[in-house]
């Protein structure tokens, strides 16, 4: 059992040392949200549609005593993503969204609303979102994922055809 214990210790130490540190913020923008100054950070820049990234929101004086919401709206469309500003899972002293993606390319308006002791503030940031990364299209690759279930269905259909259970005596017997 000693070797098993050693393997388990190595695995746990390895898994315990995984790095989930805040991704390097590659680009920062400053937005005036009423009386509050907000720094918006992007872990991927330029931002591409369908490519996941972290977005952080850091008020200059910290998030203490503040609450807020965001509204990401694509120009000339009805697409709008509304969320509360929540603490970033990788750094609890700031706000942030981890692993989100912007669904479509185009000009997005990021509207911020912050409430705090100095009252309510609203600010906006224009964000150009580029085409999705070059790669296989979802429409072409989605059918690949269906192959295993098609195989199961073909196998079941073939077996059904061989047995023809509705005509089989056992289907009507206990």
């Amino acid at each position, binding site marked *: 059992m000693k070797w098993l214990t050693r393997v388990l210790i190595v695995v746990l130490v390895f898994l315990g040392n995984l790095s989930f540190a805040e991704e390097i913020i590659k680009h920062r923008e400053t937005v005036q949200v009423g009386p509050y100054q907000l720094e918006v950070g992007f872990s991927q820049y330029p931002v591409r549609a*369908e490519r996941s990234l972290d977005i952080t929101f850091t008020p200059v004086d910290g998030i203490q005593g503040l609450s807020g919401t965001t509204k990401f709206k694509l120009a000339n469309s009805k697409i709008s993503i509304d969320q509360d500003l929540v603490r970033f899972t990788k750094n609890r002293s700031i706000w942030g969204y981890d692993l*989100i993606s912007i669904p479509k390319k185009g000009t997005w308006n990021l509207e911020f609303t912050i409430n705090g002791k100095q009252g309510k503030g609203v600010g906006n940031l224009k964000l150009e979102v580029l085409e999705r990364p070059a790669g296989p299209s*979802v429409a072409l690759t989605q059918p690949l994922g269906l192959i*295993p279930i098609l195989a*199961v269905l073909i196998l079941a259909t073939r*077996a059904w055809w061989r047995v023809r259970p509705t005509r089989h005596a056992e289907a009507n017997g*206990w």
Partner: protein
Amino acid sequence: MAASTFNRTPISTLEFPRFQSIGAGFFLLGVFATFFGLGWDVQWHSDVGPDTFWTLPHSILYFGAALSGFACLTVVLISSFASREIRKLPGMIPILGGMFYAPIGFIVGGFGAAGFLSFGLFDQYWHGLFGFDVSISSPPHMGLIFSYIMAVSGCVLVFIQGRETKTLSFVIATALALGFTLPFVQMNLSEFNLEIGLFLFPALFLPLGMLFVASVTRQPWMLFVMTLVFASFRYLCWFVFPIITSGYAGFLGLSLRDQPSGIPTIPYLMPMLLPLAGLISGGILVFAKSRGWRVIPSVLLAGGLAAPFFYIDLLLGQFVQSFPTGLVGVALLGALGAWLGWQLGVVARHANRELEQIQGVQS
């Protein structure tokens, strides 16, 4: 001709050679590990979030797939090359023109596990292009989910050999197959804005699984046992996922999201009153048999009456409140699922013609 050994049959009638028995045990353990890891991974993303390939949930789910695949491959290799006598054992079927021999369940399961690991690699490639996932319905994820369904279907078939079954293992594998397929397919459909799947799938697939068990084993109470196993997986995940998620997050120096769902997602989609439905369905079958009722109407009744009980709890209860007449449709779907499950049970018992001859069953 009706088989009339319904109650006199011992619980398990199938004896495996030792290598198959060990292989089947590891295979079942592997599919359970993958089910557990995938369910925990969904919880991790929902409540904590950060992702790398080497999280503990990922490690468990891929360990499970590797274990399943290794177990299947080993059984196939031993069946094919160990000795001529093994090739002649009941249930062995030739593959690739007789190059390999193995029981069907290990073949299907092996392909399922290999598919799972291959789509895992595809998922890594996808992460490189699009970053770590924000949705469960990406093409590689679809492949992972459907490969697992293939693997767990193989695991179910491993414990059926014509009219003989290793009944308790078969029941556990079927409960796992349902416990995985139902929530993951529902989650996928809802990402395609097909929330209707939330309402249709339990009514169709749970009676299908329940009556499949009754049909394969010819022991109606095994249907109830399967629902109890399903419920035990459900409660295990319900209580364990939140604890290990917050514990693992703390271990890594992370904390839960400000707005976690507060609900273990996968077990939430596994109806908790399934054993009640199982009790009703099993009871109907036993009563119908004792009274000599016709089989198919009894099967339809068993599915139709059981299906509405899936909708009483939690989320699904809202459906009943807002759309009570929908229960009629639910009952009809339940009857259809039950009929399909019963017929598929007959298919599973009689699809291998050589076994038919060995076991002396007339087709």
